[in-house]
């Protein structure tokens, strides 16, 4: 009962906010709706029992990505600035007319139905995997997997991230005259 309610709320939040992101004209508002959508996704993870992933979703996206996007939006000056710089003020690009929307919806619906048909058997055959009894929670299971089986991938990705960090620092550094 509770899980269903949580699922419905999170799914509504995710989809509603995602639609709002697409239709809002103001890019700052889009960012905020994106925030809502990402929190909804965290709720979906929570309904699946993946509490660590849910919290990581909030941590990474709310605490990091959305703030970064807000910064980027504000520091780059918005639509008018770019349009003026590239002399595009007269030409407002549109997303399409009713024919393109109609064709897009039709293709999307066909694609969705095909996928549902294809995956329905697989979904039935493989129910959601529950974690083994040797781990008290998903957190400890993820911990064990990260430092035992997938330690190489873990280390490689951390080296990659370190490289990205150093690269960003070098790019952002003021050049010596």
């Amino acid at each position, binding site marked *: 009962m509770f899980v269903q309610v949580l699922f419905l709320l999170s799914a509504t939040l995710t989809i509603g906010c995602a639609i709002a992101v697409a239709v809002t004209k103001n890019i*700052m508002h889009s960012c*905020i709706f994106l925030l809502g959508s990402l929190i909804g996704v965290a709720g979906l993870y929570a309904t699946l029992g993946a509490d*660590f992933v849910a919290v990581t979703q909030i941590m990474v996206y709310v*605490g990091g990505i959305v703030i970064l996007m807000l910064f980027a939006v504000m520091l780059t000056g918005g639509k008018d600035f770019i349009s003026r710089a590239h002399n595009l003020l007269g030409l407002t690009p549109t997303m399409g007319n009713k024919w393109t929307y109609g064709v897009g919806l039709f293709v999307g619906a066909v694609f969705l139905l095909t996928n549902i048909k294809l995956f329905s058997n697989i979904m039935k055959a493989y129910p959601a995997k529950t974690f083994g009894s040797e781990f008290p*929670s998903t957190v400890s299971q993820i911990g064990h997997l990260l430092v035992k089986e997938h330690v190489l991938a873990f280390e490689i990705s951390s080296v990659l991230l370190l490289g990205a960090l150093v690269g960003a620092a070098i790019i952002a550094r003021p050049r010596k005259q």
Partner: protein
Amino acid sequence: MNQTLVSYLSQYEFYDSLIGLFGKHQGILTFFIYLLFAAIIVGLCATIGGLGTYAERKISADIQQRIGPNRVGPYGILQFLADGVKMITKEDVMPFTADKFLFYLAPMLALVGVFATLAVLPWSSGFIMADLNVGIFYLIAISSLVGVSVFLGGYASNSKWSMLGGMRWASQIISYEIPVTISVLSITLLAGGMSFGTILSQQVGTPIHWFIFHNPFAFIAFFVYFIGALAETNRAPFDLPEAESELVSGYHTEYTGMRFGFFALAEYIEVFVVCGVGAALFLGGGNLPFNITIDIIPLQLVQVGIFMTKALLLYYVVIWVRWTFPRLRVDQLMSICWKYLTPIAIFNLVGNAVWMVLFNGKSVADLLFGGH
């Protein structure tokens, strides 16, 4: 498995009679218990936040050899109620060019972010809304909503001061999150879990069993955490976002009435929350001394009292620091975070890990006096 308030209460007899009362609608009973305790905790924390403003004024008056508020109620203790009433009755002014949607949203988001952290705050071993197994991680993650809200408040006001304040706050919070999170991580390493239940159960006994005295690195980690927490909650000497001598009042310059009150309340409650987390992580939280294992409700209330005492003592230190140190410059703020706190925090983390391997997880007290 996650321990919750309901699973704690269900071990008592009166809970069985409640279940009998509700019959098969147990979900409703659970819901009402959570609702009741959420209301109690939110009310309590709002009062703490309100009293925080009173304490701030009274302690600052004490430090500056003034008297402070003394008219409303005994010793002026009802001053915060008078302030609250004043704020509610004030006109709600919004700048003409403000972004309405974001302007209304920002104070709500701040309060939501702070109140959501109360769900995992361990008042005592039993009275904790939900002892999530990702407890402390959840708390750090959800409190970043406050950062977003302040940033939005600054942007939506459409004012230079607000804008600068909001941007300073956002950059400050994402910088200082790093040393704070790494310090918390080193405690997680010592405790072997992220839930507050696990962390607190490792600190039972006398004060020498607290994690702050576990090893030298944990001792340093406490101070790194505390300094970082001061900066994250926008307290002096790190209160650059509202630096009144340069930015009028920072991100909430344009806010009036209760919307300003929401920001102020969120800030004071957040200070209490970080103090409570500091008390739980490093100072043994609400643990009774000498490993008493009797579990009855009055003792739980004693635990709540111990937890509150520790948290409020830290709160006092926060106020004390605010009225003692001058404000930093922006470049000093960033260099403290990136050149000092972050390397120290990483050093602590590595040091803790090495300690755990070398001494097999024993604390200094265990090594000196034996035990565990």
